């Protein structure tokens, strides 16, 4: 076990110990504040270990592995579990632990009004999530990745349903669980296809093209669920029922990016399946545009950000579909920072005005200047204004799409780049400019834990783009920032979008409306399609199968039982219990046997 692997192991184990401690020592959990500090300390240890992993390994070094056999059977282990550290997982480990630590520190203040018990429970779940995510990130093969995948799904379910007494939150949690589990069946079947045909869970295996295509399509179904791709995206906007820091960590920065991370990991496998990559290209592009349109008409500030997350994940998936794992990964990294920043800044605003709705905000720039500046940094980064982190990664995504499939995906993503700038401008102007609503009149800047976290996250949102070259070196990819057609068009789209938003919403009012989009949003077509698929198809099929089970299968069983009982009832009269009767039977039987022997 090398030092690198040891530190990666510490990064995984530290939050696990905290989670276990908080689960098995209820008194600590019920105290609230000590539990929170235990969780933050665990995350800080994890962050420190992750930073050491990143900096002590040479950027050009190969993968560092340490594995143990798992489930020894028939002389051959079923699989291996352990730690796999290379450029991708080391970087991802730092991104995850950094954002998680920031979010937890932010939560110390944000969740302050909760009762002690739920305060402790909240941080126990956070520790569980960080452990699960790290298990996923350092997975040496697809099987361990799947374990982490399911664990983060569980943590997501529990955290969305954190306010479980609220019916809408409980429903949203179940919906998220239901949708992602449906998609996870794809992961399971993909793994089965892979292991049956190649005998291993490694992503470097070399199956035939047909097997690779089938396995990767199945894996991609799981990615569509986890990374909220159209048409499996419907759970993500509802997941905003969870506390805002949870949305920042799980449903913007890290967990939903697990799908993209899976494709980046399994890139050797996906590279063998061009058909799957075409599918990814189109699904990603459609998601990016579709979600960007819906983000335009949301009135809940968190839902704008949720749809924006869908849209940005669409960018990443499209880049991966174009065959550039690095572009997708780069955008994942920068997106994690600026989207976490945006959510936390929105959380700071929500904390101040006690509402998610943009009509209760307005004019907050004067009352909360620091939050406004941080939100602006995040928004400009997301919009892709030159110089900000989001510009570099989005530009790289768009560059890889140049000329693919007749420029159509490129044009779609360019359109959504314009829309992104437009809706982010709308949110910023409506929340921070214009006249304050009554709810916003008494708002004031948040405390040091919250504003400090915003500043910490604003730095990478500004500067992470300049790390592209170094990141490419670590991830063993080619990257050169250059000035050409795509960057010019992209930055024009971003700036035009912001200017258009200023013209439309600069006064901080909803002065321009999109009737068609609003009715599309209200109609929630995809939601209804899923509801129909569930109630109209699945439940009906279930009812038919249930009938068959109850009356045919069970009927057969009951029939056998009934015949046995009746036969027994008839035959029991032979049993008199008197020894002499039995002796008669024996003697008569012996005589009959003898006669049979004689006359045969």
């Amino acid at each position, binding site marked *: 076990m090398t030092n690198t692997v040891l530190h990666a192991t510490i990064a995984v184990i530290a939050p696990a110990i905290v989670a276990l401690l908080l689960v098995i020592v209820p008194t600590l959990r019920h105290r609230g504040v000590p539990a929170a500090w235990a969780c933050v300390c665990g995350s800080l240890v994890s962050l420190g270990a992750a930073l050491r992993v990143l900096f002590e390994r040479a950027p050009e070094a190969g993968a560092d592995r340490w594995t143990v056999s798992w489930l020894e059977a028939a002389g051959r282990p079923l699989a291996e579990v352990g730690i796999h550290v290379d450029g991708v997982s080391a970087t991802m480990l730092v991104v995850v632990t950094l954002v998680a630590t920031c979010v937890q520190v932010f939560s110390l203040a944000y969740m302050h009004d909760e009762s002690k018990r739920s305060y402790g429970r909240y941080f126990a779940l956070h520790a569980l999530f960080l452990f699960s995510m790290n298990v996923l990130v350092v997975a040496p093969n697809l099987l361990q990745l799947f374990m982490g995948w399911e664990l983060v799904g569980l943590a997501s379910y529990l955290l969305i349903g954190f306010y479980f007494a609220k019916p809408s939150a409980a429903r949203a949690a179940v919906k998220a669980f239901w949708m992602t589990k449906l998609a996870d069946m794809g992961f399971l079947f993909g793994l089965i296809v892979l292991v049956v045909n190649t005998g291993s869970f490694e992503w470097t295996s070399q199956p035939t093209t047909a097997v690779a295509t089938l396995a990767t399509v199945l894996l991609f179904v799981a990615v569509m669920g986890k990374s909220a791709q159209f048409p499996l995206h419907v759970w993500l906007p509802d997941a905003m029922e969870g506390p805002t820091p949870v949305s920042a960590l799980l449903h913007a920065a890290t967990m939903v990016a697990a799908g993209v991370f899976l494709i980046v990991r399994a890139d050797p496998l996906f590279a063998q399946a061009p058909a799957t990559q075409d599918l990814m290209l189109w699904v990603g592009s459609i998601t990016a545009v579709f979600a960007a349109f819906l983000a335009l008409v949301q009135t809940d500030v968190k839902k704008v950000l949720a749809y924006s997350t869908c849209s940005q994940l669409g960018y990443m998936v499209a880049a991966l579909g174009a065959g550039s794992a690095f572009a997708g990964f780069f955008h994942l990294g920068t997106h994690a920072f600026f989207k976490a920043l945006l959510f936390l800044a929105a959380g700071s605003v929500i904390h101040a005005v006690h509402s998610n709705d943009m009509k209760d905000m307005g004019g907050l720039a004067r009352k909360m200047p620091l939050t406004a500046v941080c939100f602006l940094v995040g928004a400009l980064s997301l919009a892709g204004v030159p110089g900000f982190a989001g510009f570099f990664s989005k530009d790289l995504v768009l560059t890889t799409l140049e000329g693919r499939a007749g420029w159509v995906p490129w044009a779609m993503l360019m359109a959504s780049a314009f829309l992104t700038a437009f809706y982010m401008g709308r949110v910023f102007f409506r929340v921070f400019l214009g006249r304050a609503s009554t709810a916003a009149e008494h708002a004031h800047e948040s405390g040091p834990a919250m504003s400090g976290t915003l500043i910490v996250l604003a730095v990478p949102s500004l500067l992470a783009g300049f790390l592209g070259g170094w990141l490419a070196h670590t991830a063993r990819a080619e990257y050169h920032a250059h000035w050409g057609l795509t960057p010019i068009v992209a930055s024009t789209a971003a700036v035009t979008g912001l200017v258009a938003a200023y013209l439309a919403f600069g006064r901080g009012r909803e002065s321009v409306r999109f009737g068609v989009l609003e009715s599309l949003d209200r109609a929630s077509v995809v939601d209804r399609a899923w509801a129909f698929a569930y109630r109209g198809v699945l439940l009906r099929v279930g009812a038919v199968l249930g009938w068959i089970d109850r009356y045919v299968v069970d009927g057969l069983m009951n029939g056998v039982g009934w015949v046995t009982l009746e036969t027994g009832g008839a035959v029991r009269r032979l*049993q*008199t*219990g008197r*020894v*002499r009767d039995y002796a*008669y039977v024996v*003697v008569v039987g012996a005589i009959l046997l003898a006669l049979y022997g004689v006359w045969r």
Partner: protein
Amino acid sequence: MTLQHCILLASMLFCIGVYGLLTRRHAIAMLLCIELMLNAANIAFVAFAKFGGGPGQIFVLFALAVTVAEVAVGLALVMALYRRHGDTAIDAAAEAKE
């Protein structure tokens, strides 16, 4: 003495045993009848071994050993029956019906 004589003896002994088993109500008497039947079989074994060859005599020894065990178990059952019902008439023990 020919083989026929021996077989005749064995058959008569066996039939007496069967008759006794079916008519007697006393447990010990029934055990004795079973002994008669077993010994009829033993005589047949010995007779066939003497007149026809073969390993029949060995089986008699085995049968005797089994008989001893059977009698031991049988008498133990009779003891238990007597303690339970105060009687060795076999019809008293009809609990096997339920």
